[in-house]
């Protein structure tokens, strides 16, 4: 499927925001593990070489070192691909950063299937579940460059761990960058159905809503970039007011946004929830957006799921 027009790099937004923060906070330190060109931490590294540590292929120890640096009172950013940050280094993030309450901000790039050509070994589709399960961890999945900038600024506003998941692919700009931790952004109002989406699929959620709108179905779209803490109020209001929820994420439906939304609504405002995302399989090499379509997240599939929900609610025949 052809992708929308005006796109921007989330990674570029991260690199720029980090360099800007580095200029205003002399205690800010950045670590990377041999991927500083790809993650864009190199932008900071070039400006502030004394405060930049590229540790090589050493992700577990990048996390323990980050924690040690942070316990001295610094704000520390640690970046690598999501597969290494949340996968390779999981228990190091858990004990050294979260259990210690260290002020480390993990900004992981290359999340999800959109990694494309590198294939299933590198397509991390479990990281949201792994990271949101950690006590004390803040988890953010920006949908575009403005939200990335806002998120990077927001996470230095508190002392404690955070995980931000970025995609390798440029994404259409769909927000005004007014992101706040713990708040969902209502990108479109609607009353027949709510789509809750994160990251790369937020733009697609808007397309789906647009298309349904053309046939008279009113669809609300929530950007759930703040996965933890999440906006329970907005979610429950959407459940009560629209009666059905479709979730869209480029992540395993077993442990990600869909699981979060289904469990949160079932306790407080039970409504039908259908989950679009990666099923219980690993990815494979290929064109990024073709993979998204092939692995169950095509626009057609989203529309199908939306119609199923609308029919179950008696909103259409």
């Amino acid at each position, binding site marked *: 499927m052809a992708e929308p027009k005006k796109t921007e790099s989330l990674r570029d937004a991260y690199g720029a925001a980090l360099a800007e923060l580095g200029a205003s906070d002399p205690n800010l*330190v950045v670590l990377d593990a041999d991927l500083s060109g790809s993650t864009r931490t190199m932008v900071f590294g070039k400006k502030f070489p*004394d*405060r930049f*540590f590229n*540790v090589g292929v*050493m992700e*577990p*120890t990048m*996390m*323990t*070192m*980050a*924690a*040690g*640096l*942070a*316990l*001295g*009172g*610094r704000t520390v950013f640690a970046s690598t691909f999501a597969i290494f940050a949340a996968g390779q280094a999981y*228990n*190091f993030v858990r*004990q*050294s950063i979260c*259990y*210690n*309450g260290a002020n480390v901000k993990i900004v992981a790039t290359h999340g999800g299937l959109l990694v494309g050509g590198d294939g299933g070994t590198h397509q991390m589709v479990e990281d949201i579940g792994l990271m949101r399960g950690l006590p004390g961890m803040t988890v953010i999945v920006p949908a575009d460059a403005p939200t990335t900038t806002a998120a990077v600024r927001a996470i230095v506003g508190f002392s404690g761990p955070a995980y931000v998941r970025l995609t390798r692919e440029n994404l259409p700009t769909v927000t005004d960058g007014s992101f706040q931790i713990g708040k969902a952004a209502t990108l479109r109002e609607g009353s027949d159905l709510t789509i809750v989406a994160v990251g790369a699929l937020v733009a697609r959620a808007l397309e789906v809503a647009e298309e349904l709108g053309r046939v008279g179905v009113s669809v609300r779209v929530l950007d759930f970039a703040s996965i933890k803490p999440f906006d329970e109020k907005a979610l429950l209001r959407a459940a009560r007011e629209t009666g059905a929820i479709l979730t869209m994420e480029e992540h395993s439906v077993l442990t990600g946004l869909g699981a979060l939304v289904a469990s949160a609504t079932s306790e407080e405002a039970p409504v039908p929830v259908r989950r679009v995302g990666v099923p219980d399989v690993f990815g494979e090499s290929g064109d990024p957006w073709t993979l998204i379509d092939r692995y169950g997240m095509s626009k057609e599939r989203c529309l199908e799921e939306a119609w199923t929900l609308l029919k179950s609610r008696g909103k259409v025949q």
Partner: protein
Amino acid sequence: MPSDVDPALLGRLATTAREIRTDILRMTATAGSGHPGGSLSVTDIVTALVFHELRIDPDHPDDPARDRLVLSKGHAAPALYSALALRGYLPREELATLRQVGSRLQGHVDRKKLPGIEASTGCLGQGVGMAVGMALDARLAKRSSRVYAILGDGECQAGPTWEALMAAGHYKLDNYVAIVDRNGYETDGSTEELMGIEPLADKLRAFRFETLEVNGHDFPSLLSALDHARATKGRPTAIVAKTVKGKGVSFMENTHAWHGKAPSPAERDRALAELAAS
């Protein structure tokens, strides 16, 4: 070995170490679980650090200029808890709460609960890296703080331990000291039977450490090695401290059996009688 060590100091350290070993036996017996073997082996190392080497102050546990001790082998918690109690960080009576619900004395050391604990550790191969971060932090801040990481020898089988040591060598952290409690045993048996780590000192030298091998129960040797580390510039120091697992209690010595098993009350009393007679 230096000849100029104050005999009174050596006497005080020996007395303190005996007190700590007594506490370890009492604490683990009361808790009904814990790691006496590796706590008894590391006792003299912890004593030398907490009662001589470290610039720390229980009245100002957060002083940025303090030295840091990271117990990367976090299961030796009873040894450090006792030392901190004797040093004034907590009431000695509190040691009896080890591993109880609501206690500050977790099974593995927890910095958020107890002042004097610099890093929460337990899962191995992590404290050693946190200590690298602390040493880098001190260098960046131009503080004279020194950082001491105590590693288990079983911990030297873990890949991330060597990542961290590689980083300390790479960054030439001469404010970083890694002390390996080389007692020879881990949970399931001897290190060399399970997964050999020798030649350990050669490995550490290859990782760019100034490397010393000492008797980890001999205070003059330990103090001399710590002096040497402080005088070493341009690279980190590793001290391979040859110790006896279960040191001080005949039936706990040189076996893995007491790595993760607490003494019964009767065994505790036998052990305490031995310590009192030593």
